[in-house]
């Protein structure tokens, strides 16, 4: 993976998850939660803009954040499969968010030490947001896991269903350490610890590691991705060259 691809993958993770959360605006379980979800979506879209702009700068071909978001094909997207999994119900949404946040914050913390000041700068800003996201999603994992029998089962099932998508977060990448200053594998212990602690407080079991899905970072996505991109990209693609 080149530096361009690495930065793209940071941007794509935030973009796709932000896009998914933004679809929930106005459909949450309670008004306060609608507002919270929109805040997290806003943070993620904001983060995506920073990484995609930087990616365009690194590439040096004159592509803007919008060119990269709206005019790339699915095979060129570098996000992990976890973020493109459907919103499902509130337990699915929060399980996906928690598994992501626990990793995202750790990754951004590591990137703060990057030798590239542009990467360290973006990571520093977004890490604060990610910390808040983590406390929000962990809070909900605990409330649902330790809530009613129904919510407990829903949350356990959601964590189990999403577990096979967590392996990809830590796929070793030989070039990664040198290029962006953080090794995906190194943050695994912290992530494991966070997940174990929160699930324990939620009276939930940590699923056993089995076969892990992968491919997103290489452009091999799930069936959900095509529809998501079709919806997100259709206006700019229908009006080539238009400004909005």
């Amino acid at each position: 993976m080149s530096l361009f691809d690495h930065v793209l993958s940071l941007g794509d993770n935030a973009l796709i998850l932000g896009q998914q959360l933004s679809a929930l605006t106005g459909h949450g379980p309670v008004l306060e939660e609608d507002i919270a979800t929109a805040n997290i979506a806003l943070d993620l879209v904001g983060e995506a803009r920073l990484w995609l702009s930087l990616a365009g700068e690194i590439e040096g071909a004159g592509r803007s954040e919008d060119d990269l978001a709206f005019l790339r094909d699915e095979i060129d997207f570098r996000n992990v499969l976890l973020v493109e999994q459907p919103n499902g119900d509130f337990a699915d949404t929060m399980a996906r968010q928690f598994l992501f946040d626990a990793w995202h914050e750790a990754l951004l913390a590591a990137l703060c030490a990057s030798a590239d000041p542009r990467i360290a700068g973006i990571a520093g800003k977004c890490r604060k947001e990610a910390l808040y996201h983590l406390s929000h999603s962990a809070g909900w994992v605990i409330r649902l896991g330790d809530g009613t029998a129904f919510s407990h089962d829903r949350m356990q099932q959601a964590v189990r269903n999403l577990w096979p998508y967590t392996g990809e977060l830590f796929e070793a990448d030989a070039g990664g350490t040198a290029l962006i200053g953080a090794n995906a594998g190194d943050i695994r212990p912290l992530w494991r610890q966070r997940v174990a602690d929160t699930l324990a407080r939620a009276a939930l079991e940590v699923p056993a590691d089995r076969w892990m899905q992968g491919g997103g970072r290489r452009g091999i996505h799930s069936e959900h991705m095509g529809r998501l991109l079709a919806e997100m990209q259709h206006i700019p693609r229908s009006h080539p060259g238009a400004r909005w």
Partner: protein
Amino acid sequence: MKEWPLWEVFIRSSHGLAHKHVGSLRAADAEMAIGNARDVYTRRNEGVSIWVVRAADIAASSPGDKEPLFDPARSKVYRHPTFFELIDGVKHM
């Protein structure tokens, strides 16, 4: 199931003023109330500190007591500096 309790939200702005009541919201627990207060009432850099209090835990003065509570202070005009007339030529007072 019962509705989540109502919380009153107090925010201290960055200007060094005391916590000020800004509104209310509903939340199942205190942690959620603080998170919700952050998302609802500080979207535009309004604050650096949040207090939340269950609305049911607030004791308030009653409107019927308005006169005995607040009218007596009106007659104590000497508590205000403008009550005292300064003689000509006094500075820094």
